[in-house]
């Protein structure tokens, strides 16, 4: 550290700042020191100066005029209201200027800042309501611009015209209501554009013209009424967000101009209609989520969208699925189609990567042997709340990875167990014609099982003869008893029981029972739900 070295050669470190040498140069940290002005005796060899979190309300004239080698200047977290072009005179080498968290109300117009090598400019969290046309005329090399969290009501179109090298910009958290045509015409190098948390209602259909390099566009949390058709010109777009808006329809061929799209986030929109061809030819798209688009009657045509891994299409009006669904989507991992009116299922045979299927709350009647055939990666299958009456004996035979199967609230009188040996969770509640008590031998890994009737849980050792009478009377049966309550019931450690293991053995058995993962079976038998079925 500079302070510790005496002698003429040592570059001056202005008190109370802390300094460090960087070869012949010096890095000065004056942050959080209660300063009200820029230290005067700064060395010309200063390359890094941090004045953040002080009480500086203005830059005194010629404060930086000797700092030709300064590369990074941080004045964030002060009370600056205005910085003129003269204030920053001499900073020919400056690359990073941080002015965020001040009270800047306006930027210089007539004599703008002359910072020819500036790459990053932070103006976020200030009070700017507009950006003068000439404001950026002296920072032509700029690549990264932060204007978020200000009071802008318009896109600063004229000012942006001076920034041919700009690559990343955020105008988020302002009060912008409209994006005019040709708003970003000269920004051919722009890769990232954040406009989230504004009040954007309308956009010119040519407002994104000129953004040839744009890869990320963030329009989330605005008030868009229509689908932003202007994105059609963004041929390099990879990531698009317009969630939390007011868009009601996604038109046909909506993304025809964006073949590079990998992610589209548009949840929290009142989307009712989706064009059948809207999501065609998006070979890099891996997630598509549509919820509540009630006007969707037909499954979308996903021709050319071959990389889709997650497809969520819930609460729509689907009544059937295309027979070639899996040919179009060979890489599908998660298929979530709950809350539709689907009656018949195609074979998902070609969707060999499928891990999760959600078909709950539909109108499915039958499950054929081919429906889920060879889905060897399938881990979770939810068919609850349908009207399934019959399941082919081999329907689950090849589901070697299946651990969760939910058949709650159907019309089943029998369930084929072939292939279900790996289950840890099985739900059959609400199948009132299903009387069979499945032997635990079918399910060696079972942890949570829900049966239509309590007596069907007796095979899992949770019947009344395992519990001392007194504990049974006082304890009100609880439909969702959890794992360790069962453990206590099976290995009573309280007073009045004849079962009396010694403590060490008790610890081992707890460990073993933990390993065996004793089964949580509901509804739990009790005095009013005896183990012996009243129906014989």
């Amino acid at each position, binding site marked *: 550290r500079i302070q510790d070295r005496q002698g003429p050669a040592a570059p001056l470190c202005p008190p109370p700042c802390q300094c460090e040498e960087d070869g012949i140069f010096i890095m000065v940290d004056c942050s959080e020191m209660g300063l009200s002005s820029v230290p005067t005796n700064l060395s010309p060899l200063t390359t890094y100066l941090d004045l953040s979190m002080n009480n500086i309300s203005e830059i005194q004239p010629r404060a930086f005029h000797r700092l030709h080698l300064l590369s990074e200047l941080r004045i964030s977290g002060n009370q600056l209201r205005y910085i003129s072009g003269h204030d920053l005179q001499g900073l020919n080498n400056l690359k990073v200027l941080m002015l965020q968290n001040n009270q800047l109300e306006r930027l210089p117009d007539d004599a703008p800042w002359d910072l020819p090598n500036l790459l990053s400019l932070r103006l976020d969290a200030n009070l700017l309501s507009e950006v003068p046309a000439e404001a950026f005329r002296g920072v032509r090399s700029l690549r990264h611009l932060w204007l978020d969290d200000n009071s802008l009501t318009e896109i600063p179109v004229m000012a942006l015209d001076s920034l041919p090298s700009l690559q990343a910009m955020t105008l988020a958290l302002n009060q912008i209501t409209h994006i005019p045509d040709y708003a970003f015409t000269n920004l051919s190098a722009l890769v990232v554009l954040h406009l989230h948390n504004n009040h954007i209602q309308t956009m010119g259909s040519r407002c994104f013209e000129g953004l040839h390099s744009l890869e990320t566009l963030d329009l989330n949390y605005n008030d868009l009424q229509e689908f932003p058709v202007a994105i059609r010109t963004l041929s390099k777009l990879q990531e698009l967000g317009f969630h939390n808006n007011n868009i009601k329809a996604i038109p046909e061929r909506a993304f025809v101009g964006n073949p590079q799209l990998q992610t589209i986030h548009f949840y929290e929109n009142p989307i009712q209609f989706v064009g059948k061809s809207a999501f065609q030819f998006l070979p890099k798209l891996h997630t598509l989520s549509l919820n509540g688009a009630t006007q969707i009657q037909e499954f979308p045509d996903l021709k050319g969208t071959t990389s889709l891994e997650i497809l969520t299409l819930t609460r729509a009006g689907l009544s059937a699925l295309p027979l070639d669904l899996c040919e179009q989507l060979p890489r599908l991992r998660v298929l979530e189609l709950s809350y539709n009116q689907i009656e018949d299922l195609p074979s998902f045979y070609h969707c060999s990567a499928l891990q999760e299927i959600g078909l709950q709350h539909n109108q499915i009647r039958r499950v054929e042997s081919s429906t889920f055939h060879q889905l060897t990666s399938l881990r979770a299958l939810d068919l609850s709340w349908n009207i399934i009456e019959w399941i082919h004996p081999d329907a689950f035979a090849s589901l070697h990875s299946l651990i969760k199967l939910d058949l709650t609230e159907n019309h089943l009188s029998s369930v084929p167990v072939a292939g279900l040996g790996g289950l840890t969770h099985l739900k059959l509640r609400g199948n009132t014609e299903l009387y069979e008590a499945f032997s635990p031998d079918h399910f060696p890994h079972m*942890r*949570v099982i829900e049966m239509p009737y309590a007596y069907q849980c007796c095979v899992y050792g949770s019947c009344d003869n395992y519990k001392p009478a007194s504990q049974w009377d*006082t*304890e*009100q049966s*609880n439909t*969702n008893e*959890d*794992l*360790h*309550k069962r*453990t*206590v019931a099976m290995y009573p*450690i*309280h*007073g009045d029981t004849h079962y*009396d293991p010694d*403590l060490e053995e*008790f*610890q081992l058995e*707890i*460990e073993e029972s*933990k390993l065996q993962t004793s089964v*949580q079976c509901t509804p739990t038998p009790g005095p009013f739900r005896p183990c012996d079925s009243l129906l014989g």
Partner: protein
Amino acid sequence: SERPTLRAVIKVTLLKHEPTGKPIVLEGVFVGGSAGKAEGKLMQYHPLSLCNTSEDERQESDFITIVKLEHRVPRCKALHDKARMALDKGAQAVIFDVSDDANAAAELREIDSLPRPVVLVEAEDAEELMGLVNKNEEAKVVIEIKMEPKWPHYD
């Protein structure tokens, strides 16, 4: 009916005192049917770190997460989701200090099927544990099920 809960024994040994150091023995309560054994290095997490999936840093070795819950921290997620997220981040177990978040204990006791142990501590046990954390003393923790004495109510 009040769900019977299994108590946890928490043995804390400062790494600098290993292997001979005598462990500090504290107690807590298992939640969510998560009673079981766990062992690892103690790592504190800020309550906000369990709000999103930002992979701020991945721990290599086995670790046990401790989080001091505070009612003043804006609630970004249900506590059982926070517990699950802490386990998903690789923790062998999670210890929640609920001394300053009265609702937390009630909320956490109702959750189910957690894959690994989640323990609540409060009062002196929590104070001692957090005291260690505050001194930034690296420590190893072993969590076990507490064996209640055979005839606890015999009089």
